[in-house]
């Protein structure tokens, strides 16, 4: 998919040789103590059958506390990394306008708190590991996206997660920078992804949903760019074109959830990108090929499984609820996104 694993040991403080001297001393001391205890009981034939609560407490406490400090020292120093462009730096009260073009707005920081309060981390992680690259875990990410300490500086309790029943979300905002879609998906995940096992979050208040969607949109996007009203992602192009039919198509692209699976900037998502696809020749699953034209697109919208683009899953639901006029608008929108030249 993308480049193979990169080393995260490029940051100096991450390497094994950087372990403090006290670490090795204590490791040595513990091992020596255990071995000599074993040897002593073996050769002396004495086994301590009892211990005073005070001695017991001191020894057990020592063992627990020293490992705790072993974790605490790097934990303190990790917070002293300098923030960079990629740091998620939203503050309480910051407001995000939907970069997808709708009138929605939300507070990403509060959205992060909603994410925590609803234990989204039970199924989603927020970090890309080096070995994720080239596997199915790393949809739409590359080696530059591997998590770094500075990414989380402004999250009080980063919800990194220990389980992936759903995809990693650290770049979900770059893939789908559209609050309309995100809210829709939270309320009814199976509307666009029929096999999804995600629960519905229709019980969140409207404000919680808006803020959570705003938080998701910020993930993987630069804060400055978002505040200026644009991203490199979806929705940015539709302000340029003034043709009313194309504009209707762009609105449908968001409101019907096409944005969930088809990018308009060339990125691979669940389905093929729409950028530069018009008029090109496309290989079909099971052999053969078609030209991407109005006839093929109409068929794909109404009967998605008739011809599956090679290399993509048959995951698209039929959109027969759309009127002819709306389908024409979508086709016009796809045409406006370029013809592969």
């Amino acid at each position, binding site marked *: 998919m993308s480049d193979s694993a990169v080393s995260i040991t490029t940051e100096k403080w991450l390497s094994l040789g950087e372990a403090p001297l006290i*670490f090795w001393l204590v490791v040595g001391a513990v091992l020596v103590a255990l071995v000599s205890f074993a040897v002593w009981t073996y050769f002396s034939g004495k086994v301590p059958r009892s211990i005073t609560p005070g001695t017991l407490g001191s020894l057990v406490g020592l063992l627990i506390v020293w*490992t705790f400090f072993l*974790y605490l020292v790097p934990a303190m120093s990790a*917070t002293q990394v300098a923030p960079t462009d990629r740091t998620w730096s939203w503050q309480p009260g910051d407001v995000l306008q939907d970069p997808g073009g709708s009138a929605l707005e939300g507070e990403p920081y509060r959205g992060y708190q909603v994410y925590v309060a609803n*234990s989204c981390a039970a199924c989603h992680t927020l970090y890309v590991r080096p*070995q994720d690259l080239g596997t*199915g875990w790393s949809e739409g990410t590359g080696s530059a996206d591997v998590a770094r300490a500075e990414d989380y500086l402004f999250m009080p309790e980063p919800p990194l997660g220990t389980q992936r029943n759903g995809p990693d979300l650290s770049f979900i905002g770059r893939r789908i920078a559209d609050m309309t879609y995100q809210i829709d998906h939270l309320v009814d995940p199976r509307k666009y992804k029929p096999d*999804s096992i995600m*629960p519905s979050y229709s019980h969140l208040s409207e404000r919680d949903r808006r803020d959570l969607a705003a938080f998701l949109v910020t993930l993987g996007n630069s804060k400055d760019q978002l505040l200026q009203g644009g991203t490199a992602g979806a929705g940015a192009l539709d302000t340029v074109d003034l043709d009313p039919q194309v504009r209707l198509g762009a609105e449908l692209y968001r409101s019907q959830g096409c944005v969930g699976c088809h990018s308009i900037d060339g990125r691979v998502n669940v389905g093929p990108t729409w950028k530069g696809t018009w008029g090109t020749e496309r290989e079909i699953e099971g052999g053969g090929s078609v030209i991407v034209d109005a006839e093929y697109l109409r068929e794909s919208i109404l009967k998605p499984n008739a011809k599956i683009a090679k290399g993509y899953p048959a995951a698209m639901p039929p959109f027969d609820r759309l009127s002819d006029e709306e389908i024409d608008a979508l086709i016009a929108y796809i045409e406006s996104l370029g013809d592969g030249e």
Partner: protein
Amino acid sequence: MSEAAIQERLDHQATHRAIAWWLWPSLVGLIVGPTIGALQSLQFVYPAGMEWLAKIGLSYSNLRVMHTSIVVYGWLVMAFVAAVLYVVPQLAKRPLFNPYVALWAAWVYLVGMALNLVLIAARIPGHPLFSVQIYEYAEAPVISDIFVAVSLIMVTWILTQTVVRRRAELVYISLWYLLAAFWGTLFAFSVINFLTPMIPGVGNVYLQGWWIHNAVGLIITPLGVGLAYYVIPKVTGKPIFSHRLGMLGFWTLYAFYPGIGLHHFLQMPSPVWLNQFAVVSSVLLVIPVILVVYNHLASIKKAAHRLIDSYVIRFMMLGAVYYLLTGLQGAFQANNLVNPYIHFTEWVQAHAHLALAAGFTSYAMGGLIYIFPRVFGRQIASRRLIALSFWSMAAVFPIFFAFFTLSGLTAAATINVLGMTVYEATPAQHLSRLFRTLSGSVLAVSWWTYAWALWRARTTGATFAEGMSEVASERGSEESPDRSVSKEGTIHV
């Protein structure tokens, strides 16, 4: 009757009341926790049919936190405290120091648990006291943690005082584990709930890592093992196999366990030496596990018939076997070769169920069967119900575990090797998840029968006297005298 003797009898009764207040809620936890687990697992099988959960304000992720909170803090911790309140005075050869504190501690603890469940359902974002926290196994909001911590301090204080003022000459190894468990619990619980929130950024996650395994390592493990060290020699009437192994097992547990937690976050932006410390510790952890389990299994060599006639010993041995498997599997899963392949898959959750739902639940079930007749004075009337729950633990759990594992391995293979996304891999996991729900539901029902058997025994059991079997035979308790227990009931130290 002297004044001191009267006081001692009152204390004895108060101790029994306190044990009841820890024991019965723990059985509620045993019923509710796994049942929630079975219900929420349907989310993986039939997600469209689970949308009603959102309508009542609880989605999968909210239920998932309730499930872990209830099984860990509602069932295991409460059941172990109930057993420990009985065991520690026996070993110290004196009544529990200030048993009324244990009674109050139970009420404070239950208030904390109730607050926790209410606030999980309330889902308040961003409040310092009332919000669900991100820390796995410590999701309870801070206000609930304060109650739980106060309760734990109370219990720790009276148990420590009971041992300090003991009339027994020696401090038996069971007490080492039980005391160390409470001290370690207090420290770990305070660190994650009251100190970790002060450290922002990725450092916060290192401490999440430190905590996540110590929830099991410093709280549940020593409680379960310490209880087994008491119950096994008591029921077999024979001393423990080897005290040297016992000592080594204890100290290696505390040397290796507290540092292993970061293996849940390997390859996050954290120092490599700390990762490797966690991995090496995880592998070394097989030493205490093998020592303890060998010691326990060898202890019943000369009393093997107890495996047939004593359900206490059956549960304890089953627990030992599952604990051994957990320890070996943990070392396997944590090492650098295997971890990248299985990380984030359900095989890890299957491992957690092997430890908590199989190993330590067996220990707790056996421990409660042992203390129940001695505290409430009644035999457990229905051998059939106890047999049902035992054989379910022995025969159905492995099936449940196998399907859980299969689902995780399917995800690992499809996503890591075939390069499919999580979304594409989901249909491939469907069947194993369906059978996981089915077998898990059978397990949940068997736990209801266990709780029901104890609840019924409260009124219907025959009067118990030391020397009788804890679980009555079907033909009546008088016909099953427990011949092998020495009349004095002493522990051979």
